C-alpha cells in the first residue's frame, strides 16, 4: 500500500504529509510535472500555495501534468485526499463540488479546531471512532467553503458532507460549518484542517491519524477483494 504526495511549486506541507503517510504505509513524493503516478494507491494533494495561488487559490495547479493523471486515477475509483490547498485544487479541478473563498474575517488563521466526523462510511473516515470529535489544526486564508443551496442539500442527501466544525469552532465562515466534503462516489475528499499536523503526540493531538489509517484499511480491503475475486 503506497501513498503518493504531490509536490507543486509553492507546496509547503508535502513533507509533513509524506511523513504522516509513512507512519501508516509506504509513501513517496510525486512531482507536478509527472505524467504517471508510479502505481500509488492513494494520492494526497498537500497544503501550501501551489503556483503562488495566482488568480484564485488552486486555479492554476489544476492544469499541471500530474493533475491529468490524478483525474484519471480518481475516475478509475482511486482515492484522492486534498488537504487545505489540495482541497482548493480539487474544487477548481471539478473533482469536488463547491469552492473555497477568503475567510469571512479576512485574516490568516492558525489554530486548533474541533471537527465532527459526519459520515464515517467513507474510505477516509472508516477508522475514525464513532461520535468522536477530532482536534486538528487549521491554517489558511481562504477556507470559507461555499456551495449553492441546491448543491448543498444534494450533497447532504448523498452523505458527501464528511466533516463539520464542532459548534463554535467554525473559523472561517464556511457554509453549514463544512470542514470537509467528498464527491458522490466518496473516493475523492478534501478538507481544510491538516490531519498531517496531528499524528504525533508532539503535535498535541494524534486525531488526524485516523484519516490515514482509514485509507490504509480501505486499500487493503480493496486488494483482498480483488485477490478473492481471482482466487
Amino acid at each position: 500500500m503506497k501513498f503518493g504526495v504531490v509536490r507543486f511549486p509553492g507546496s509547503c506541507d508535502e513533507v509533513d504529509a509524506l511523513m504522516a503517510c509513512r507512519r501508516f504505509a509506504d509513501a513517496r513524493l510525486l512531482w507536478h510535472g509527472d505524467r504517471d503516478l508510479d502505481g500509488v494507491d492513494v494520492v494526497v494533494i498537500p497544503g501550501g500555495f501551489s503556483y503562488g495561488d495566482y488568480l484564485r487559490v488552486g486555479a492554476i495547479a489544476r492544469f499541471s501534468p500530474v493533475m491529468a493523471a490524478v483525474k484519471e486515477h480518481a475516475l478509475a475509483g482511486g482515492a484522492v485526499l486534498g488537504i487545505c490547498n489540495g482541497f482548493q485544487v480539487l474544487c477548481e479541478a471539478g473533482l469536488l463540488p463547491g469552492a473555497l473563498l477568503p475567510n469571512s474575517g479576512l485574516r490568516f488563521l492558525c489554530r486548533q479546531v474541533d471537527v465532527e466526523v459526519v459520515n464515517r462510511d467513507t474510505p477516509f473516515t472508516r477508522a475514525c471512532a464513532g461520535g468522536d470529535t477530532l482536534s486538528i489544526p487549521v491554517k489558511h486564508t481562504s477556507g470559507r467553503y461555499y456551495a449553492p443551496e441546491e448543491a448543498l442539500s444534494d450533497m447532504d442527501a448523498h452523505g458527501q458532507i464528511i466533516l463539520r466544525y464542532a459548534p463554535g469552532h467554525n473559523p472561517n465562515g464556511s457554509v453549514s460549518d463544512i470542514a470537509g466534503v467528498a464527491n458522490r462516489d466518496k473516493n475523492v475528499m478534501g478538507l481544510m484542517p491538516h490531519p498531517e499536523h496531528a499524528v504525533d503526540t508532539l503535535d498535541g493531538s494524534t486525531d488526524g491519524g485516523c484519516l490515514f489509517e482509514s485509507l490504509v484499511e480501505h486499500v487493503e480491503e480493496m486488494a483482498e477483494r480483488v485477490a478473492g475475486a481471482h482466487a
Partner: protein
Amino acid sequence: MKARVLIRPKEGILDPQGQAVERALPALGFEGAKEVRVGRLVELEVADSSRLREMCERLLANPLIEDYEVQVVE
C-alpha cells in the same frame, strides 16, 4: 485587440473585502458609500475575441462564485 474582463463576487456571496473597504471609507470622511464589492480586472490582448467567454468560464473566473463581464476595448 485589447480586452478587459471584470470579475466580481457573485451577488449574495459575502464579500468581506468589500465590507472592509466600506467600513474604511467613513473613517476618511467619505460618508454614504454602500454595497462595496471588490473584484478583479484582467486586461489582455487577444487575436480572437470569440474565445474570451470560454477563457472566463475555464480559467479567468470561477462561475460558481464569480460573475464576469467581458469588454472589448479596441
